[in-house]
């Protein structure tokens, strides 16, 4: 029997287009394995930096009715521990695992990428959405096409045998421009988008922002139209495969992403809104959707809305 859901993502074979998004169930080999067993085509680990970071106090993750606000503050166990988790995962699962990394400087991006590559993940995802400590107004790296291009080039220089993806955010003037800078500097894949905003919720009685960090990025169904538009614009600008991420909860959402130009589709917040069953549920609904319409491969739908 053919697997209608099979996709080839920059040479990596996925049994399902669904990719667990970074930051969700991604701290340990065991949590990643659980998601892999439940139907994800690939899983992404939590972004890690050179050193351990405790991140912000709580509330750091806040449901708000249409998704979440989060300001975890790049909490992570550090690259050494993450390498160990990824190795453990790879010993126990055949599902491709994507490592995710960040840095405080361009140099640090390159260094963490080189380190994490030791664990031989299927791909290294470079999360450029963190604030650029050197920039004015605390802008994120992701807002600056030149800087993202530079990070891509430097990471590429240190990671030659594994595909790399740049994880972009909408906190920029044109995500298409940023994607172009990635393509021009050797990226294999684009992951888009990271959480949106940031946003703020204030408690009317306490009279303070609820998140300990005051502001946090929006994720979940509220951002799906923004993510679909981002994927659309990136697909118009570059020919790299895209992991379309943001607000995906259903098979129809996956189809939207693919029609906009995505090759694979990230799923994060839906683990909260729909439960861990979301992977198997989408897989089976997507199979039925395709079967009913005689679609044998998702690649037939890829970018098909660009008419």
């Amino acid at each position, binding site marked *: 029997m053919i697997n209608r859901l099979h996709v080839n993502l920059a040479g990596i074979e996925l049994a399902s287009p669904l990719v667990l998004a970074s930051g969700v169930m991604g701290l340990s080999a065991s949590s990643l394995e659980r998601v892999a067993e439940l139907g994800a085509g690939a899983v992404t680990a939590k972004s890690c930096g050179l050193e351990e970071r405790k991140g912000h106090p709580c509330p750091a993750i806040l449901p708000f009715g249409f998704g979440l606000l989060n300001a975890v503050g790049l909490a992570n166990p550090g690259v050494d521990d993450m390498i160990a988790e990824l190795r453990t995962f790879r010993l126990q699962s055949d599902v491709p695992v994507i490592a995710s990394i960040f840095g405080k400087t361009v140099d640090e991006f390159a260094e963490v990428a080189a380190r994490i590559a030791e664990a031989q993940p299927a791909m290294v995802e470079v999360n450029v959405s963190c604030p650029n400590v050197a920039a004015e107004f605390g802008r994120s790296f992701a807002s600056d096409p030149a800087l993202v291009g530079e990070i891509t080039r430097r990471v590429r220089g240190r990671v030659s045998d594994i595909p790399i993806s740049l994880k972009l955010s909408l906190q920029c003037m044109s995500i298409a421009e940023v994607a172009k800078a990635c393509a021009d500097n050797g990226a294999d894949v684009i992951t888009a988008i990271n959480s949106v905003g940031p946003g703020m919720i204030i408690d009317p009685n306490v009279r303070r922002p609820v998140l300990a960090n005051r502001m946090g990025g929006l994720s979940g169904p509220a951002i799906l139209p923004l993510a679909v538009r981002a994927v659309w614009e990136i697909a118009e600008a570059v020919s790299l495969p895209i992991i379309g991420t943001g607000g995906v909860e259903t098979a129809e959402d996956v189809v939207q992403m693919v029609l906009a130009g995505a090759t694979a589709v990230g799923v994060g917040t839906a*683990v909260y809104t729909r439960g861990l069953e979301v992977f198997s549920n989408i897989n089976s609904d997507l199979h039925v959707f395709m079967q009913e319409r005689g679609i044998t491969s998702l690649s037939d739908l890829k970018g098909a809305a660009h008419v």
Partner: protein
Amino acid sequence: MSEYMQAYQVKRVLTHNPGLKSFRFDRVIEAEPGQFVLVWLPGVDEKPFALSGVFEHEIEITVKAVGPFTSQFMNVQPGDWVGLRGPFGTGFQPIEGMVLIGGGIGNAPLRYLAQCLREEKLVFRWVIGVKTAEDLAFREELESMPECIIVSEDGSIGKKGRAVDVLASMNDNEPIIVLAASGPEPMLLAVHGFANTFSPDIPVQLSFERYMKCAVGLCGQCCLDGTGLRICVEGPVLSGHQLQGVTEWDRPHRGPSGRRPQD
């Protein structure tokens, strides 16, 4: 209540001792005993606490000062606004003939479980273990409950000893058909070990703690190595069966970074 943040004014504070207090909020919720809420102390942090009681118009948590958050919480006064979300996670299932066994602050959720058992007119016994007398919350209430067997490690209240040590003789008295335990992890594992010496095993309901950030099963912070079970969704109350395959018993827990301190 729900996963959405909502602030409530503290209605009453019950001081068991300066480092152990119960706080009541004006709020009606449906919650199972063993389920927990996230408690936001504005400007400080947000942490998980089990419900120690649910009353007609009030809910209650009981907090023991062990670190920065819980110490600051001792200053909370009636009228203060505190954010609450939940209830989250799984609860204990009240069963006729149940034996409850609690260690220290772990007795807090068992108090609510006992409430439920009494309401449903189910027979139960409750072994309340504390280090020393002043660790005992609700002393008067508990001393007057015929179901309670209080033990302390220093003998300052009740029998001297540890709660688990009482189990064997209790079973001799009247066979234990199901165990609900909440307390330090070594105690939970000892209870599990005790239950496993029988054939068939005595079914257990054990309430675990792990560092938590989201309580909605997303962040992965509270996952157990070996199975990936989330203490905030599949737990905190786990059955003996769910303990199988877990590879992190007796290892230090992952902290806020997700890192597990070196054993």
